[in-house]
């Protein structure tokens, strides 16, 4: 549950993720990720580098901010959901009614 405590804890990370709604920030991040992440702590940078959705979410990232990073890196929502469930995409899709609707 994303509440005010998590929002405060995740603010800096979420601000970075949110900044990927700007084309220049996305391009910088894809070209030189460390430069784009310079305001983040080492812990935060590590989670972003690894695209560790679960760690970021536990840390205080909003799912909707994580989506900006996922879009930037070409990761789909079913891949993220599979990650949260600790499954591969293939395993997760087997649980879905229309696995092709992505």
């Amino acid at each position, binding site marked *: *549950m*994303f*509440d*005010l405590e998590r*929002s405060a804890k995740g*603010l800096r990370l*979420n*601000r970075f993720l*949110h900044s*990927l*709604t*700007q*084309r220049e920030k*996305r391009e910088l991040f894809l070209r030189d990720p460390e430069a784009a992440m310079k305001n983040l702590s080492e812990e935060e940078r590590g989670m972003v580098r690894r695209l560790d959705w679960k760690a970021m*979410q536990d840390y205080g990232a*909003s*799912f*909707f*901010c994580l*989506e*900006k*990073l*996922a*879009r*930037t890196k070409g990761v789909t*929502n*079913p891949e*993220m*959901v599979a990650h*949260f*469930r600790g499954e591969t995409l293939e395993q*997760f899709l087997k*649980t*879905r*009614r*229309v*696995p*092709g*609707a*992505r």
Partner: protein
Amino acid sequence: MARIIGGIGTSHVPTIGVAFDKGRHEDPDWQPLFKGYEPVAKWLAEKKPDVLFFCFNDHATTFFFDHYPTFALGVSDEYRIADEGMGLRPIPRLKGHAKLARHIAKSLVNEEFDLTLFQDLPLDHGLHSPLTMMWPTKPDWPGAVIPLVVNVLQQPLPTPRRCYKLGKAIGRAIRSYPDDLKVAMVGTGGLSHQMIGERAGFNDEKWDREFLDLIERDPERLAAMSIEDFMRLGGNEGAEVIMWLIMRGALDERVKKLHQNYYLPMTTAMAVALFE
């Protein structure tokens, strides 16, 4: 005087917009979704509302957590399309209806709703992923939208009761507008889904069907539930269906559901329903 000619409840899953932009209308995996919107598009084409009053949520696109409103009403004559990390959708800028929006703003603030008012901000898929399923984008949008952005992301969320009351007050505000206008209400979100945590991928078709029944017949019962109830029954992110209560509150006490479609292909139950 302005009239409310009906209401639409709809999911606002971003993939709906992507499927539309990629022209997946005949793709067997998507066709049941597109088919489900056809009666709504037809109703709108026939009834020709001047304004769609859209209750939806921003997805940490335009509004960020450093300054986060509970209810934010747009009062512009135009809205840009927001970039959500993939560039802009190939659709025209949205037309607003500043005059009616200002009238509603005044009416609601005087009825003790503590609105945030915004102008000149871009809008995200929460509004335009369902919109492109119902309204033509060419040569241009056939009418205007009034966006009401609701906090369903950062707890504390507005209570279901507050949403329903807000809808009733919006209904009064629209009906007191002096010019002749036809307005349709749109409530977006849901149905059941959860994107995060161990319960990620959760759905409950049974609850969804019950919700679709109650929103027509007994919205009072939904308004009496808590946010926690909605989260338990429909998933963390599924609780956003409280935005359908705003739409429903603005309609008459008794309405008729003209159409309903339910499709659950992947993570989010995609529904659309039409009320008159």
